């Protein structure tokens, strides 16, 4: 580890940033140094100003992004407010979240050469730098290809190579894996590990996916919710020593650490606090099961997860029989058979290109399935018109903005009701009710595009539900979002689910799947590889591997645990001992939403929803809104 007394490469002093048009500074006041070669992780809850801070490090802010800056940032002795961005670019290389927004040219080689060319380097030197950078991230062999042909992880490695080619001693990465699938995340961290191993660059990393990042980091800097510095120290001091405090602040911790905190509550010692799956596993193997006082598993992990009605007496809400779907010239789904029970929370997972999105688009009629293959509440999706469909099944696209069609939030919701030719008075009542329910009442007159990200997402869920659909289908709803917002959305979905709405969701985030979904559909190459209770599927490591997926971090820690076979099958945090104490309802923490096994079984919920399951859906109903009764 580099000596911290070395001359700092980066000096941040009492930095406060207020974006133009905002009133509060985020960050508010932050001071820290980075020495050459040091790897620093910047943490903080959503809204603490981490991304804003990174933009100030190479002068983009305030030079390209208008903002008021107090305090100072010095790189290599240069003041970043006064030195042109172009000059700073040789000191600070940047990698942003969206790999597509960093591509400028037509080939991988040209892309990496772009920066050095701007610096007017001689051609030979440009090519030498490009080659070195591409070899470091493992893309040299693909230098002639169009960047579009790389995977998401490949494009982000290209962005890292492009930053390396600038020759800057400091590399700043702002959530580099937020837009990637698990395979892409692994690729990016493998490339970063190479850079760290070479030791010639300092790195400042903003990242929510700590499970991948924590192994590379020397030091951790933490901001609090108001944008003040609360911790700056080694990984041991900050992450291990103050984990509980950070967790309470809303800072994301590695899943293994959250699990360990829970296990400690159950009486395990687990000291020092594990940060990675390997550490958690080693710590558990080294320790006996604590005294009975700590309690055992909340229930055997094989219990039917809440919300999965296994009585089998009720016909499934969605039936799929022999669904084959073509896209262009290729068949993307081959003879899918699937039942989805009423009240379930179903995750559809699979590797890239497995047909996840095609499947849920066919379920919701976004893409018309062949007649007779998909039925929702007895309605043939292949034959139904759009209006009938929207009262049966709601579809939420990845980007909520794509779905907005009206000029006010009120009209956005009311649209679905007006389509059913309800009297205007009833439209108004039901719309207002739903806006209140989703915390959007004060925004009724706003333009949908002016809402915050979280509000937009809630509105898009509301528009999909207002017509009374008992099923909500979501395509990668957490893609590109930070964990706090992802968790807020999942909490909302879990709440809707408890009230009886059936949820079908496609996602890459395996830990999220295991935490929330009671059933999982595993797709591979356009076929259903397996379908069943989430805990059972994820306990079968061979099956997960066969689907081309990585087990979620908790599984990696616990699978095949020899000393505690009771834990070896656990896949979700809430199934750990120590989890069932004082279920919190905070929306900021992954372990916050406690599936409460005491809930009435979901078989009871259809009664709550009789309004939507009747044979004449468009008839005016006294109920307020389907699904959120």
């Amino acid at each position, binding site marked *: 580890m580099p000596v911290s007394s070395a001359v700092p490469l980066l000096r941040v002093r009492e930095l406060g940033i207020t974006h133009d048009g905002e009133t509060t500074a985020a960050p508010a006041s932050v001071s820290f140094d980075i020495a050459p070669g040091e790897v620093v992780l910047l943490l903080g809850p959503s809204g603490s100003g981490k991304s804003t801070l990174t933009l100030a490090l190479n002068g983009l802010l305030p030079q390209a992004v208008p903002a008021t800056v107090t305090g100072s940032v010095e790189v290599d002795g240069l003041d970043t407010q006064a030195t042109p961005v172009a000059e700073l670019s040789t000191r600070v290389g940047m990698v942003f979240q969206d790999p597509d*927004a*960093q591509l400028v040219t037509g080939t991988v080689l040209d892309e990496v050469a772009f920066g050095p060319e701007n*610096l007017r380097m001689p051609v030979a030197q440009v090519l030498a730098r490009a080659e070195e950078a591409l070899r470091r991230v493992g893309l040299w062999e693909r230098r002639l290809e169009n960047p579009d042909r790389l995977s998401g992880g490949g494009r982000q490695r290209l962005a890292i190579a492009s930053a390396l080619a600038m020759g800057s001693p400091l590399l700043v990465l702002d959530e580099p894996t937020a837009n990637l699938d698990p395979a892409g995340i692994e690729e990016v961290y493998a490339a970063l590990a190479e850079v760290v191993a070479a030791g010639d660059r300092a790195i400042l990393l903003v990242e929510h996916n700590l499970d991948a990042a924590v192994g590379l980091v020397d030091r951790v800097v933490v901001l609090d919710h108001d944008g003040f510095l609360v911790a700056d120290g080694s990984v041991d001091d900050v992450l291990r020593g103050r984990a509980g405090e950070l967790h309470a602040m809303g800072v994301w911790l590695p899943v293994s650490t959250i699990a360990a905190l829970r296990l400690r509550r159950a009486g395990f010692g687990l000291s020092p606090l594990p940060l990675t799956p390997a550490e958690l596993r080693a710590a558990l193997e080294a320790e006996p099961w604590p005294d009975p006082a700590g309690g055992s598993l909340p229930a055997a992990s094989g219990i039917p997860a809440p919300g999965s009605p296994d009585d089998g007496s009720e016909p499934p809400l969605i039936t799929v029989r022999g669904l084959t779907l073509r896209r262009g010239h290729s068949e993307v789904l081959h003879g899918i058979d699937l039942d989805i029970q009423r009240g379930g929370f179903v995750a559809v997972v699979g590797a890239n290109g497995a047909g996840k999105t095609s499947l849920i688009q066919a379920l919701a009629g976004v893409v018309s399935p062949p007649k007779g293959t998909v039925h929702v509440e007895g309605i043939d999706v292949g034959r139904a018109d759009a209006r009938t469909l929207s009262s049966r099944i709601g579809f939420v696209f990845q980007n909520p903005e794509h779905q907005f069609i009206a000029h006010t939030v009120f009209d956005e919701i009311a649209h679905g009701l007006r389509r059913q030719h309800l009297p205007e008075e009833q439209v108004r009542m039901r719309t207002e009710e739903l806006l209140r329910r989703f915390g959007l009442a004060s925004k009724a007159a706003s333009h949908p595009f002016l809402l915050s990200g979280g509000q937009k997402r809630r509105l898009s869920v509301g528009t999909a539900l207002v017509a009374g659909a008992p099923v909500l289908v979501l395509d990668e709803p957490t893609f590109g979002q930070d964990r706090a917002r992802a968790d807020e959305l999942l909490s909302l979905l879990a709440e809707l689910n408890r009230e009886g709405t059936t949820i079908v969701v496609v996602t890459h985030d395996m830990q999220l799947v295991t935490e929330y979904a009671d059933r999982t559909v595993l797709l591979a190459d356009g076929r259903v590889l397996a379908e069943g209770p989430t805990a059972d599927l994820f306990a079968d490591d061979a099956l997960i591997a066969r689907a081309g997926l990585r087990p979620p971090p908790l599984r990696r820690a616990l699978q095949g645990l020899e000393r505690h076979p009771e834990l070896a099958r656990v896949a979700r945090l809430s199934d750990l001992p120590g989890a069932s104490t004082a279920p919190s309802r905070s929306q900021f923490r992954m372990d916050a939403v406690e599936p409460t096994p005491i809930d009435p079984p979901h078989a009871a919920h259809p009664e709550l929803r009789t309004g939507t399951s009747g044979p004449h859906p468009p008839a005016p109903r006294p109920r307020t809104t389907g699904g959120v009764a």
Partner: protein
Amino acid sequence: MTDTGPLSAATAAHSSFDPYTRRVEASRVRFLYGLNPLAKLAAPLPAMALLVFARDAATPAAFLALAYALLLVGVAFTRRLAAVLFLALPLSALVIGFGFALWTDASKVDQSVVVWQIGGWTMYGGALEVGFATGLRLSAIVALTLIAGLSTTGPDLVRAAVQQLRVPYRIGYTALAAFRFVPRFGHELDVIRQAHRVRGAHGGRGPFAALARWFGYIVPLMAGGIRHAERVALAMDARAFGAHPDRTERYLVPWRVRDTVFVLAFWLVSAALFAALFPWGL
């Protein structure tokens, strides 16, 4: 590297790669790839401008033949080329020809030949002649633009504009970056249309409903586009774009003797054709 590619000392050393991803590997006979894009644009320009005023069929036919000859020799013969030259262009010439023949004011044309008579309506030979002259004229102009269009990549055109026309590189390379937006926007538009269809936005048929529908796509498309452009701009700034008055050019698109020869020869042939066929039906 293809035999036609511009070489600088350094790219010659790394000659195993071809910087132009979309360039067609072709033999030396396909000479159009080896010319400077600006030469290929400048050569047919006077002819295209004068053709606008021609009224006969022979002048555009002659230039159509010239363009076809150049394309068939100078561009690699692919299925796409065949489709353009032997399907798309002739068909559009026919359609435009008939369209203009119908549209022409019958009282102002030569009425000596009657081609068809349906009831009280007569198609005169003169109208047909005017129509097809127009169809040929438009086809000839399009065919002349194809000389550059089918043998030039966008990046090459931008590089030539920066290197020979002294277009500021900040503008040229920003335009180059914008090429990448096109497929992204196409995809985004597809998703937006899908989403709006699911919501049942602006149902109904007819041009007004369609117009309303398209108007509804604009806001989300623009919002996404502006955000994306801002991010790209930040990423380019972070890599020193615009730092200096010029930047290293790894790919030179030089103006060589052959370019001058091509342009002058084309102009000479154009002048000869125009002279021989004067007064072009005016």
